[in-house]
């Protein structure tokens, strides 16, 4: 490794520096629409950064194209605003080359699930240590309001004047089926939850996937209102907590019971059920996560927020480094001259022509 590169990759010169939120604000004007949910997510990100203990120069934000994908410009870290849908692939290359960096992928429901869907699912199975934040506003914001792969069926948009026809993706089900090791959901309007979920993602060793409900005030305003509005939220939103029974409701008076493979909502107030009837959430159980992710399309059931799955699996880049080390152990550090001279080599003498 080149000296400078080694220096860049080595422990940071200013690792001890205590950062504040302001250290992570870049000098660029933030250009989202006033009231856009993106602001809240940016603010939380700038807020948690100082606490992660990662030197600022080791942090990289990589995005595709979309309103949300402008995010990197606003973080005073390294950043790359790439092309539509390709951030997971670009970040994979960066992380493989530079496992020392803390790499964050910012994407949208169009960027990450439409054009970029393939890179996203392959990233999940590879488990490269990246943190993927999918800003889901169920619409294409930047191109001014076409439906996206998460838009509700029937949504009328510029490109679907008579209503969209596609069954939307359930992003959580999708990545669970794609072997993700960390799957979570949070929202722009619940700042503490957003904050803690981002921290959990940062801690996870492997690919973290967070779907963030984000309100697009211009093209899809209020689509998550029932979950984000404080008055309806208690009844529509289930906050998951590992090892705890799945309770919700304003007074935690309701619970989710898994009846075999089916999630049911039970009341703890009608005298028939006690808290023991409520299923204890296990964030290590992929099948449970899948069932909980499917509550989205089941009427009468709340939507799950929090970490649905967290699982340990070797990271791609670690395994690759292990192979490099192992190869070096077995064959020695690569010797170029020896490599070239390998195979069937013959000598032509200076008098070859006469021999």
């Amino acid at each position, binding site marked *: *490794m080149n000296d400078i590169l080694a220096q*860049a990759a080595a422990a940071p*010169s200013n690792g001890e520096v205590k950062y504040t939120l302001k250290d992570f604000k870049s000098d660029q004007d933030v250009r989202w629409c006033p009231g856009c949910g993106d602001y809240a997510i940016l603010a939380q990100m700038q807020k948690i950064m100082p606490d992660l203990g990662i030197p600022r120069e080791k942090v990289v934000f990589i995005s595709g194209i979309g309103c949300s994908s402008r995010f990197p410009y606003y973080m005073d870290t390294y950043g790359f605003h790439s092309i539509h849908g390709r951030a997971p692939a670009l970040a994979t*290359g*960066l992380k493989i080359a530079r496992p020392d*960096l803390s790499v964050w992928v910012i994407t949208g429901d169009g960027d990450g699930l439409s054009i970029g869907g393939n890179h996203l699912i392959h990233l999940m199975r590879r488990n490269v240590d990246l943190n993927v934040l999918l800003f889901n506003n169920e619409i294409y914001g930047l191109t001014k309001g076409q439906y996206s792969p998460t838009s509700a069926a029937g949504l009328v948009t510029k490109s679907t004047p008579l209503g969209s026809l596609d069954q939307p993706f359930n992003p959580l089900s999708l990545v669970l089926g794609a072997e993700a090791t960390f799957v979570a959901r949070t929202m722009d309007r619940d700042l503490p939850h957003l904050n803690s979920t981002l921290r959990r993602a940062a801690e996870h060793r492997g690919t973290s996937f967070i779907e963030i409900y984000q309100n697009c005030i211009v093209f899809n305003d209020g689509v998550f209102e029932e979950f984000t509005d404080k008055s309806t939220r208690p009844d529509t939103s289930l906050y998951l907590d590992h090892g705890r029974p799945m309770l919700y409701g304003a007074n935690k008076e309701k619970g989710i019971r898994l009846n075999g493979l089916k999630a049911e909502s039970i009341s703890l107030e009608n005298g028939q059920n006690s808290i023991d009837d409520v299923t204890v959430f296990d964030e290590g159980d992929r099948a449970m996560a899948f069932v909980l992710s499917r509550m989205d399309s089941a009427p009468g059931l709340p939507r799950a927020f929090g970490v649905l799955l967290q699982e340990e699996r070797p990271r791609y880049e670690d395994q690759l480094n292990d192979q*490099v080390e192992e190869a070096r152990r077995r064959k020695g550090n690569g010797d170029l*001259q020896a490599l070239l001279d390998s195979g069937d080599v013959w*000598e032509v003498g200076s008098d070859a*022509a006469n021999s």
Partner: protein
Amino acid sequence: MAQSTVEQLDDVTIRFAGDSGDGMQLTGTQFTHTSAIFGNDISTLPDFPAEIRAPQGTLYGVSSFQLHFGSSEINTPGDAFDVLVAMNAAALKVNLSGLRSGGMVIANAEGFNRKNLRLAGYENNPLEDSTLENYKVFVVDVSRLTARALADSGLSSKEVERTKNFFALGMLYWLYGRPLEPTIRWTAEKFAKAPEIADANVLALKAGWNYGETTEIFHVRYEVEPAKLAPGRYRNISGNLALAFGIVAAGRQSGLDVFLGSYPITPASDILHFLARLKHFGVKTFQAEDEIAAVTSAIGAAFGGALAVTSTSGPGLSLKSEAIGLAVMTELPLIVIDVQRAGPSTGMPTKVEQADLFQALYGRNSEAPVIVLAPATPAECFDIAIEAARLAVRTRTPVFILSDNYVANGTEPWLLPDIETLPQIDPDFAKPGEDFAPYKRDPQTLARPWALPGTPGLEHRIGGLEKEDVSGNVSYDPLNHEKMVRLRAEKIDRLAEELPELKVEGDQDGDVLLVGWGSSYGAIREAMLRQRRIGRRVGHAHLRTLNPLPRNLGDLLQKFDHVIVPELNDGQLVNILRSKYLTPALRLTKIQGLPFREQEIEQKVNEVLSGESHDDKQESAVQSERMNGHE
């Protein structure tokens, strides 16, 4: 012992042809290797079917290997061949047209049985009717003779059958006076774990030799003296392997770790395969989910400070177009290897073509210039890879290497370089504390700084939107945009000032200048040499750098009465030359999935000098019949 006369030859071209399962590639490789050690100059052309395992005996299952060796400079695998070894009827059928009149056919009798004849579509046995009356025909019962030689080997008849190619090889060794030792050594190594197989192969080889020595079937033996090669250590190398080695060498010379993002595709996959084995050099290979991920992962790695490479063939390059534009805009060093194959679309994946030049130069939205290099021969791939890395790092711009199926799979003897003499590459990373702006350029090269994540104080953001000069902020300013577009081009154009001038081989002025690029080098050079022998004043200018063009190219073109540009496409470089220099350069095109034969080039020179040829889009190495809908 047979009494045979010995004839001296300057060069010989042999084509081994048989079923895919007959081991023709191995036979050819062994003959090549032995002849190389013997001291001949050599050029080879393998040719195999697209199918993984085509059914036995069919026409499309024929696999062949052509080699051309000689006592003086060898530039091509040979036009028409002198000897055709045909292991079965299909091999004869497919290849006969390439045998020179009066040439030698060595046929394996067993391969012409009823079933084989039928599969090859022969009504009568061509060994027995008049089909071969213009050739010297030697029918040898290779299968039976091999079986007899190995009667006591204890091997199954299937295993015995598999060694028959070595019997044929032995015969050819005898015929051309080659030593057996190199192949015997190779066999022992290769089958170290199965000595009975090694022994069987050696037995078959010797049996073949002895057959030549003992029987009277061949009346003449041939001698081809060693060539006057520069002294040094040699090995045979294919273009793909040389590229892989070159990349690793560039990693060493730059101190950068190599990252290859790739997706398998014929004929580029071997670059991935070769590099994947070199992890102990710190090489990281990433087989991506598609070509887009392959190139974008490489861009990510480049951003992180790796020597980033992506390799593919034409259809894959199409998919990488958009991302390469991003690399142009973000001005990151990136090596893009395109091993060209015949197209369009899926085309003929195992065949050669040089038709991706326009795609390399122009296959992106808007003005997105890149550097384009093309190796002329397999061995040159090594140097081109290092040069590509040097230029990519120097200019922070993508550099294309336009290889092709011919150079990738062909081989030639390579004078091994002393690695201490390789050029140094300075990545010149931006340093902490430097007066830094992401698009503040080096006054000399116009390169922007390469500031790696992890470097304290150089935090910055890049992306695909137009950048403000110096600051790198997003900018929609009209004049800034024009300036940046021109800067990205100028960075490349300026290179022409520091790159060496183009040297013409052969005459420096006169009748005809042949301008070529890529793997047509050998055929063009040979044509130039032969034309000069018959008194023509012909030069050969071969472009290794297609963008920027050498600064003296315009002057060179002026020095000849005619300029001819042979290309395996419909006329791409020629268009650029005509446009840029307003010179009436003539096209010579061939689009058959095959390399040029030197005669096709000579013929064009003859036509031009006799005034028969005018430039015409229809002009082609092989005039295609008038296209009128085939009524």
